[in-house]
């Protein structure tokens, strides 16, 4: 991507004014998006992102300069601009590239070789199936997104890493309406692979499932404002609570500066003894997986909480200068426009021993959250508020009826202490996670779990 001689000159120039570490990250990324509404393609776009960023560290102080394009002149100007911030004299030298890491993944069907007609045909199958499910389906949105990122990163410690990261995802959203009320259903699977992944997708089932969710919720009564009740949260995207309300607070981005409720708690019990939480960037083909992070450190499986005890944070190179903690292969960024910081990859509760049906049979009265939606969280405190896209009221251990408009409200650190059941089958769902270093693809996941009590919000009365 960039000539070795140019990379060496850039890293050298960046250390001219006293920095003790320099790094060059470059990418050439192609993205495309097809959007379809009610079977008609409304948007078809293509973007090529091409540029590089130079980072200089002096202790924990960070200077970052980026430029679009990758010609030598622009890169040297970026290096000199970064160095100019430090105003010192050269005190460190670069090392020869002794560590060279090259990712060996190559997609069978690269997205650049797939024309729009193939993308459109795929999502049209889901769109048609969703529309055909019921006369109450008034609108179907379908999208195809793909990204193929070629990246390289090199630093003054002698590390050189380069990789290719293709990702593709389909999105189906169905809207059901009756008497002025509307409800939505949503499915959005994706993987870190080429177009070949979609040969195995049952697009019709995807569309039908989204439509069924919308219609079910359309006919559901409002969820009661139940207060603190037992809640069973289904697997897959149910892991969003772990992601948002807990593991963001385990990223060095928060911990290193004392902005986390989990600061200083390594080795302490922070969760129920049946809880093990993992962030694993090595899982082949998964949406959040990486072979190396954006500092060139190999991805790894990080056990964050083991049997309820806090074992690890997620830490990038800069923050190891503030925390005594090993690197965890967690340094990520949206693009060359961002300096990297510690982020998640594929984050999930590990499988437990409990039976999915028993969880509901013995829960008494409460809520079964079959499908979680979006929400918000304050990473400083872990306080969260999440919508439940598909929920069922449970009475005396039996599913009583679907309910709409349910929300879960609480604090992440409290929820993980109150988990008393974890199922045996874990699965994950893709999403995009936003933080200081931009938006990155991550998986959230879990088996079905039960929490002894969470505050359930809603607008309805007793059922």
């Amino acid at each position, binding site marked *: 991507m960039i000539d070795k001689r140019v990379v060496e000159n850039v890293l050298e120039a960046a250390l001219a004014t006293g920095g003790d570490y320099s790094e060059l990250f470059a990418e050439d990324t192609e993205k495309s998006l097809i959007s379809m509404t009610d079977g008609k393609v409304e948007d078809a776009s293509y973007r090529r992102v091409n540029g590089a960023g130079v980072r200089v560290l002096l202790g924990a*102080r960070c200077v970052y300069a980026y430029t679009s394009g990758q010609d030598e002149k622009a890169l040297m100007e970026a290096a000199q601009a970064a160095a100019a911030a430090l105003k010192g004299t050269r005190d460190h030298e670069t090392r020869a590239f002794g560590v060279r890491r090259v990712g060996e993944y190559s997609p069978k069907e690269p997205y650049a070789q797939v024309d729009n007609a193939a993308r459109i045909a795929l999502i049209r199958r889901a769109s048609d199936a969703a529309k055909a499910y019921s006369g109450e389906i008034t609108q179907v949105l379908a999208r195809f997104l793909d990204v193929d990122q070629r990246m390289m990163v090199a630093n003054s410690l002698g590390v050189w890493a380069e990789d290719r990261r293709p990702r593709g995802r389909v999105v189906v959203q169905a809207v059901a309406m009756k008497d002025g009320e509307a409800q939505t259903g949503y499915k959005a699977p994706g993987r870190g692979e080429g177009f070949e992944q979609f040969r195995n997708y049952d697009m019709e089932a995807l569309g039908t499932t989204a439509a069924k969710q919308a219609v079910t919720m359309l006919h559901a009564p409002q969820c009661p404002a139940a207060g603190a009740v037992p809640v069973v949260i289904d697997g897959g995207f149910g892991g969003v609570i772990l992601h948002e309300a807990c593991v963001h607070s385990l990223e060095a981005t928060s911990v290193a500066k004392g902005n986390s409720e989990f600061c200083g708690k390594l080795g302490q019990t922070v969760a129920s003894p049946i809880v093990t939480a993992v962030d694993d960037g090595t899982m082949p083909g998964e949406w959040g997986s990486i072979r190396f992070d954006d500092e060139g450190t190999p991805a790894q499986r990080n056990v964050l909480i083991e049997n309820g005890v806090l074992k690890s944070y997620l830490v990038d190179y800069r923050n190891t200068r503030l925390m005594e903690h090993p690197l965890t292969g967690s340094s990520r960024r949206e693009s060359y426009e961002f300096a990297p910081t510690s982020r998640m990859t594929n984050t999930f509760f590990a499988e437990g021993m409990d039976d999915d049906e028993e969880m509901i049979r013995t829960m008494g009265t409460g809520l079964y959250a079959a499908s979680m939606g979006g929400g918000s969280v304050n990473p400083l405190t872990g306080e969260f508020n999440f919508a439940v896209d598909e929920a069922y009221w449970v009475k005396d251990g039996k599913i009583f009826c679907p309910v709409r408009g349910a929300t879960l409200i609480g604090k992440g650190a409290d929820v993980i202490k109150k988990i008393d059941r974890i199922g045996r089958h874990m699965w994950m769902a893709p999403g995009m996670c936003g933080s200081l270093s931009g938006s990155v693809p991550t998986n959230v996941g879990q088996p079905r779990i039960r929490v002894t009590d969470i505050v359930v919000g809603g607008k309805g009365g007793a059922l």
Partner: protein
Amino acid sequence: MEFNAFKKALFEEALARGCEAAEAYYQRTESFSVNVLEGDIDQYEVNAKGGLNLRVKLNGRNGYAFTQKLEEPEKLVARAMDNARSIEVEDDHPMQGKCEYPVVIEEEKKAYALGEQQKIDLALSLERAAKAADPRVLRTVFCTVDSGRQEARISNTLGLDAAEEKRIAVSVVMPVTKEGEDMRNAYAFRFGDGVFDVD
């Protein structure tokens, strides 16, 4: 390639391949950002980026493709044309020909003339003010002063050729407060000469 050469190559390729018209929208941004923490610079960024969005008109429909790599014009044209063939709705934003524009003189703001050291000093004074505001303020999560300049140029095969420039300055602070074991945060921001409103 430089912008004008790339634009020329794009227009020639698009027309040769059967497009009725082509348009290039180019935007370049230069920016500066400093975040301070405990009286020192925590993160300092200085950046420049540009990108070109190509629009082609093919069989009455518009197709778009964007690139930050001003090379391989044939590839960008091919993607824009594939997008034009794929879109099934009318685009009610027709390409303009040559236009006349009124002159707009933007009020010059003192904040745009600040040098880098002055912006750093402003961020440091903002942090001091935040911490002095109340004894329960522990620190700031972030305390930044950002500035930027954006240049945009649009031209097409129908005769349109226009350019504009915008500037921005913004400051943001998010303090963390603590009382007992309870921690809270909130944020505030100011634009333009509002960045001097530190208190």
